[in-house]
């Protein structure tokens, strides 16, 4: 007879198992309401919360399609570039989440003073209201660019090391690259690619990677339209193409679309139609670089109705002067 006691092998104490779980590094409380409260006041999250936010979004966004279907009414926004207080002004103009549905077309970070706070707020809103806000990937949502244009430096200064920047970049890798509104308006950050003829081919791209320096995934985020161009011209930005009305109309007709909506380029009034209103540029960073004096806009689509709302930079008001952080170059 087999001694039945031998079959009961204790692997660990039952009480210890429960205690250990609460200390496991990946198990953190997710508190979107608290995080939104902090983020709305231009405060960034403690590191562990920032990592938890990113990890959760990665899990969720990995399941999203490259092109996200959105139904109207929806408000479309262009580049933000770390202008946090102007983002708050945008919400005043366009309406608050979740009462208003939004598509942001990328470039949340770099250049402006509050990249970290800006992208933190947008990510918290995405976490809490995934059906009311869509965040597309812009060319600045990449390691190669955000290492140079400020987001990395800002995370370094605020957290003291690069770990949080690393996690944000992992989220950037899985942000969708397009939004399809009412199956008739396509939103992307930059523009078209000669390698993309159909929305289906957009769907088939492997987007979960660093933005490559050429190819269709690169082009979608880097290209620009131009009235003086017929077909495709290599962009002088160093990535992407410059494309014209002919290829835009071809793309729209092939895919039964009425409008291509994008940001990526500063426009003086915040909004600009091109190609007989077949293409729209939306720009949402007012007084860009604090010198351009431009207006900013959001673009509202409700069925067949389209309208634009404009806003300007927030007045200085009372903002705390930051501590002076001397860069290592000057030591």
């Amino acid at each position, binding site marked *: 007879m087999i001694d039945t006691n031998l079959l009961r092998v204790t692997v660990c104490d039952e009480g210890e198992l429960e205690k250990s779980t609460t200390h496991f590094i990946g198990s953190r409380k997710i508190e979107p309401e608290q995080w939104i409260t902090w983020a709305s006041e231009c405060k960034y999250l403690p590191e562990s919360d920032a990592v938890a936010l990113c990890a959760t979004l990665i899990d969720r966004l990995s399941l999203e399609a490259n092109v996200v279907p959105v139904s109207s009414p929806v408000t479309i926004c262009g580049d933000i*570039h*770390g202008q946090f207080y102007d983002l708050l002004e945008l919400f005043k103009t366009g309406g608050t989440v979740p009462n208003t549905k939004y598509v942001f077309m990328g470039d949340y970070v*770099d*250049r*402006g*003073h509050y990249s970290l706070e800006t992208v933190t707020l947008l990510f918290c809103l995405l976490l809490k209201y995934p059906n009311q806000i869509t965040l597309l990937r812009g060319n600045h949502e990449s390691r*190669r*660019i955000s*290492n*140079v*244009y*400020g987001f*990395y*430096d*800002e995370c*370094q*200064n605020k957290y*003291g*090391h*690069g770990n949080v920047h690393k996690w944000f970049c992992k989220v950037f890798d899985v942000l969708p690259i397009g939004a399809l509104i009412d199956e008739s308006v396509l939103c992307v950050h930059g523009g078209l690619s000669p390698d993309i003829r159909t929305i289906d081919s957009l769907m088939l791209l492997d987007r979960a990677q660093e933005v490559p*320096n050429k190819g269709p995934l690169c082009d979608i985020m880097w290209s620009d339209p*131009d009235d003086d161009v017929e077909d495709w011209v290599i962009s*002088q*930005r*160093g990535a992407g193409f*410059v494309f014209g009305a002919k290829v835009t109309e071809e793309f729209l007709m092939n895919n039964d679309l009425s409008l291509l909506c994008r940001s990526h*380029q*500063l*426009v*003086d009034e915040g909004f*600009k139609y091109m190609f007989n209103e077949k293409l729209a*540029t939306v720009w949402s960073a007012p*007084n860009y*670089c*604090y*010198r*351009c*004096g*431009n207006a900013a806009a959001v673009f509202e689509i409700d069925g067949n109705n389209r309208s634009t709302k404009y806003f300007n*930079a927030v007045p*200085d008001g009372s*903002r705390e*002067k*930051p*501590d*002076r*952080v*001397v*860069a*290592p*170059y*000057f*030591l």
Partner: protein
Amino acid sequence: MAENSYKPPEKMIKNVFDLNPWYFSKAYEEYLAFLHRLNDSVVGVHTTADMRCTDLVISFIDMLDKLEKWAEEIPLEDVSEQRFGNKAYRKFYEKLCKESPDLLASVLPENVHDALVELVPYFTESFGNATRIDYGSGHEANFLILLFCLQKLGVFTENDDKVLVLRIFNKYLRVCRHLQTRFKMEPAGSRGVHAIDDFQFAPFIFGSAQLIGSKSIVPDSYLKKNIVETHAHTSLFLDCVNFINQTKTGPFHEHSNQLWNISAVPHWKKVNSGMFKMYEGEVLKKFPVVQHMMFGSLFSFDRSEHPRESMEDAPSQDPMPPRAPAQHGMFAFKIPSAANTSTVHSSSVVESGDLRRLHSEKHPNEHCPPPMADA
């Protein structure tokens, strides 16, 4: 000079792996040495100081004046058709490209006219990009490279260094500011608040050298608008800060956060040396900026024959060479308004090391060949 075969300069930095041969190129070494010579020539010198200008220098300045007149004469285009920058800039650029060979030929001595094929592109690409109607530190670098080439050709000598900075380069800055404001040029590749300025870098280097030894102006002084306004004519640095104050809106500590930070540096000598390190780190070693650089026989991509005097590692057969001590500290310090302090870690050394490892992994034991000569 030995007889040279001049050719139109072309882009050699096509991807991040080309950064390493660029670091060790003749162009990099000689350009930095050139900037240091210019810098040393203006230590403690006011912009308004008397200095002897040769006829050649005066002709060069007149040539730049001519560009400014063109900018004024070309009518602006109607705003409604444009995205942001005024498309009339493209007319200016067309005229610049068309007239540049003759302009430079009329100013430069006969014996260097053979080199015009190599010099003209640096000149035409000094004033901005016509497609995007923008301007950035890469365009500024092209003008400095032009001056470097002219000195290498013997058109200017090292006796002209002071004049190159405070008369010719200064005039170039004024032309560029005029273009920037008249045609509403967009900042090219701007790092926004993380950069010294949206448009320029070099005047902050030279301008900080000018202020070395100043008794009345310390780095903290340029936070006060009236001091900047009063002394803008004495230093390119203060002149640039004055231009920023005139053209930017919002709080200074926000729109010019790097300048805000640098004002805490105790003296100008340290500001000056820091500016050089920052120029290397943020302009010369950043692919998005240097991918547009053009190389020829004068500004040569060939590997330098001299071991670097800097602390940078020399190339080695070892795929993982030990890193030399950093030129600057690993840590920055915060100067708090309150009592608390904290350390901030630098990333540039790690990034640089990573890049060398990356390069070694990609091209183990490969030596980059010199660019193909024309048949």
